[in-house]
């Protein structure tokens, strides 16, 4: 009986097998890389806003506290964006003719809200509560980065589940005393109060921090 397969079939088969296995590994690596890349997580994304609002100017330049505009942060799940009236408390006096503030004046005039583009966008099945975080020693900076250095708001952290869990599993290094919540450029690691003491002070129970229903429901 003649040989059906030529000799080189052996090497072809072994190449195919190794290549296939290697291909799967490559595929997984590519998927992981894409999944954690800036393209997918949106980190450093800087969407164009109707008004080029500068946190850098308002926070570090003028020294406004975060809560002047984000009023709900301590009492609501949603930090809140300021109504047009809040903008106009100052801008009815200052920069009253600036072109970049035209949408704000139009909003007031026409009684139509400004449509801001969401920068920190969690998936719809994730329920994040601002109030539980800021009341338990998690500072604004921990998730939003150095807002005081942003001429245009960008997303600084990946906001992936892995990133959330890194803190939910081990919150101590990220806790701040109550008076430093809105502080920018503050390093909890260098603080005089150790994390485990803050954990006690805030009476944080770690039992449910990594449970699914803490964030998903």
């Amino acid at each position: 009986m003649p040989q059906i397969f030529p000799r080189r079939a052996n090497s072809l088969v072994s190449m195919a097998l190794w290549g296939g296995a290697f291909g799967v590994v490559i595929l997984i690596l590519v998927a992981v890389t894409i999944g954690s890349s800036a393209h997918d997580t949106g980190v450093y994304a800087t969407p164009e806003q109707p008004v080029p609002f500068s946190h850098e100017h308002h926070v570090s330049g003028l020294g406004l506290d975060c809560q002047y505009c984000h009023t709900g942060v301590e009492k609501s799940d949603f930090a809140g964006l300021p109504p047009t009236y809040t903008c106009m408390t100052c801008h009815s006096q200052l920069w009253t003719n600036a072109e970049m503030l035209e949408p704000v004046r139009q909003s007031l005039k026409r009684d139509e809200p400004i449509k801001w583009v969401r920068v920190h966008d969690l998936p719809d099945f994730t329920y994040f509560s601002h109030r539980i975080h800021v009341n338990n020693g998690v500072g604004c900076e921990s998730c939003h980065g150095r807002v005081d250095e942003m001429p245009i708001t960008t997303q600084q952290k990946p906001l992936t589940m892995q990133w959330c869990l890194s803190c939910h599993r081990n919150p101590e290094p990220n806790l701040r005393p109550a008076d430093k919540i809105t502080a920018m450029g503050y390093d909890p690691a260098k603080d005089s109060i150790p994390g485990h003491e803050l954990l006690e002070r805030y009476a944080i129970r770690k039992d449910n921090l990594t449970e699914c229903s803490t964030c998903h429901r």
Partner: protein
Amino acid sequence: MSSISHDELQHIRVRLGQARGPQYWRSLEELAESESFGEFLNQEFPRLGAVWEAPMDRRGALKLMAASMALAGLTACGRQPREFIVPYVNMPEGEVPGMPRYYATSHLIGGYAHGLLAQAHQGRPVKLEGNPDHPATLGACDAFSQASVLSLYDPDRSASVMNRGEVAGYGSFLMTQQDKRLEWNRTQGQGLCFLTGSLTSPSQHASLQALLERWPKARWYVHEPIDRQAVYAGSEQLFGRPLEPVYRFDRARIVLSLDSDFMQSQPGFLRYAHDFMAQRRPRDNDGFLARLYVVESTPSITGSVADHRYRLSFHHMENFARQLANAFELDIEPPDEPAVPESWLSPLVDDLKSNAGSAVVVPGDQHSTAVHAIAQAINEKLGAFGKTVTYIPPVDVSHAARPLNELTREMQNGRVEALVVMGANPVYTAPADLNFRQAYRQVPWRLHWGEYYDETGQMSHWHIPACHPLETWADARAYDGTVSLLQPLIQPLHGGKSALQFLAALEQGTEEDARQLLIDYWLDQHAAGDFETFWRRSLRDGIVADSAFSTQTPALREDWAPALSFASGERLPDDAITLQLQPDPAVWDGAYANNGWLQELPRPLSKLTWNNALLISPVLAQEYGLKEGDVVRVKAQTSEVQVEVPVYPLPGMPDRAVTLQLGYGREGIGHIADGVGSDAYVFHTTDHPWASPVTLEKLDRHETLATTQNHHAIHGRDLIRATTLEEYRKHPEFAKHPGPHESLYPEPWPAEREAEYAWGMAVDLTACIGCNACVTACQAENNIPIVGPEEVSRGREMHWIRIDRYFEGPPESPHLIFQPVLCMHCENAPCEYVCPVGATQHSASGLNEMIYNRCIGTRYCSQNCPYKVRRFNWFDYTGEQATYTQPEPVHNPEVTVRSRGVMEKCTFCVQRINRARITADIEDEPIPDGALQTACQQACPTQAIVFGDISDEQSHVKRLKNHPLNYGMLEHLNIRPRVSYLAGVGNPNKEVEAPQSDPLVAPEKEKADIHQASVNGRDDDEQVVRIFEPATAANGQGGTT
């Protein structure tokens, strides 16, 4: 699913005859162990095969799977779509974006107010709850009121003023109205008629009176489809003036209902259910458990709670009242033949008499004047006046208006020049013999104000859209006369007008501010004192303080009895079958027909959805050879009317009676209501409004009914446990069956986990009346989709809580018991072990969590769930492509909207738990017991559902868990459910014998102890359990009839 044959009925009879102890069953098919039931039972999701219409080979299936995987993978790449944040321009004071606000308002059922708290998210009403300060609700909420929030966003609601079928502006109507006003001023309103529904609003009544004074020749007529004229006529007969009875079940020990469904369809029903069921709780001391006797024509939830239920055809109810009157020595002519055997009647009469002062007789709203007069006269004999029944002036002021038949006569005679129809739909609901449609067409100028452009609106010259109750400023009275306010949570979405605005437009021809109109009325009422404080206080509370009518103590007229006239003198032909009409427990008189939540709500007794089948007794079904879904032609004997309708054999129906529910068979109303069921109003006539003789004719057709009665059935286990008070006091632990002890490891209860709370629930089967309030509450709270009749008939309804309805006893007159079943949050949850992707997990506080974004839809969890409480999204029921898509604004923003291919189930309202936990954490206070309620618990009128922390020894739920009646469903499986049940306890009268008039009743069976029954009913693994621990002597008799 088909019904049963003659042989199977024989089989049932034999089985029941042999059975020892109580046997609970859910349907006749189950009882007969018919083949189709077995098929249905053995499939996880029945009728799955039916959807694969095309033949599918393995190669094709693999190709499709590969393609769908590739497509799913592709769409997973990339960022989610861009989203926007839209802040206010000027934020309302006190608003905190992201947190809900609550406003007190009301919903009207048949004109009577039910106080509500409406939850709004940034000005968008999302959920309605009961107002704890309101006397009619006490914090509970019924299914109609709950579902009305869906109607607010109903796209089929009337959206514009219509003039002769064309869209018109409100301004042009006002211009026309200006001319009309001048004309009526000139003629003093000659030929002008107003037609309203029942009216309890003081301000609207005042405005209407002002119109009638301004145009003295104008007339006011009333038409309420589910009218209560007999209540007022009965009291007028008895006392000489119309009065409204208000029952005080909180003082009652013995209650007799004469076909009165006071727990579901009478004004004040939520309060009545609450009060009566509270009287059924003192089982643990020597207190008396209230006893309920019901004589009824169609099984109702009130009848299902009864200790003694006697089924009696509607026509015979008056005979029964007369028979009862004779037993109380009232001077009433006795009926030709007794309606109820003496053996049943005399213990009842003795019981009533020996509890005089705390006994009460409640007549049904639809029964005749004579029944009402007799019932109240007996109450007087029983010393009930001022104790268990009090009298107030009529809450519904429209009793003073003229009846519809007079209006129709005037219309036919051409004496009506202009007709204003306000909030009524007489073209659909008027008695058929009046031929209202024809008469209406003859009126030269017809104006209609209503929420829907309905049958009457479409026939009117002008149609003005009405506000939804959540858009309106109004007031209305509750069952006891308490004035309840309605305040808007949102601007009218479709430019609707409030009732006061409409009346003001008639009077002045101008558009007035709805709020100002209401305030103007109340300013007049509170001329003295600080109005601002009064008004703000009333709006906050939802009620005007101390506005309940004061009770009156009427005296009986001397000559009330001889003046009574009896309809029961009318002899029916012997072969006649009585057709009874009833308001539907889901769509009422048809007003809620376009509400998907209500259409899909399994009706309490029949478990039917999306239809009104003809309810028929098993005996009659057998006689005509009818099975469930077989179509019959129902022909009225007194007119030419005939309707073709599928039948539904319902155990407990009187033998020669059939029942059809009102409110169906609509056309041109909306995409939900159209074409659902058959119109029963064609049988509704002036002489026979609620029951008439009919004949049946079997047709050679079959319709599949979407009934959920056998869905999610768990066969052959003792899921339901109930006994009598006497037995319970002898053997308090009768419901405790030997549990599992085979575990090698010690398993403390609750499982020791490092958690602050251990959530659990206890459901009291004594208190559950099966009213469906919890089902709707859950649907609203948890964004549960509407799937439609086809999907329901495939067993794919999505409700997270279902109410299983069990029969016990002979199929003709069984005893009923309800059992709400939801996710049990088992500590050893079988579903968790089998999920290949870990999409269902256990939390430290005992929640069985479902993580939608992980779920890949293998459905292993559902297959492994012994309670069948998991629901699968077979299709995208929520998206824009869905057949019954829900408007987006009604979605609770706190809960994920699930998409196709995802499993879901009860979460114990985890969004509420999280909110409470976060608040407690911030305030450094533990969550107080009772402050955190699940949606189902909150809605329950009888407080049958209690949720809380079972690790807290003092909590309400823990006390119930320690109660001797507490038992776990299927607890022998050692899955350790966190939801447990309290076995039902009834209080039957030993003297009463079971009615023996049934041709098919099995011979009186010897009742054995429940333990014996449980031995028969259990399967092998339980037998093994008992080897380890022999059962303690647990005795008890179930079944109380």
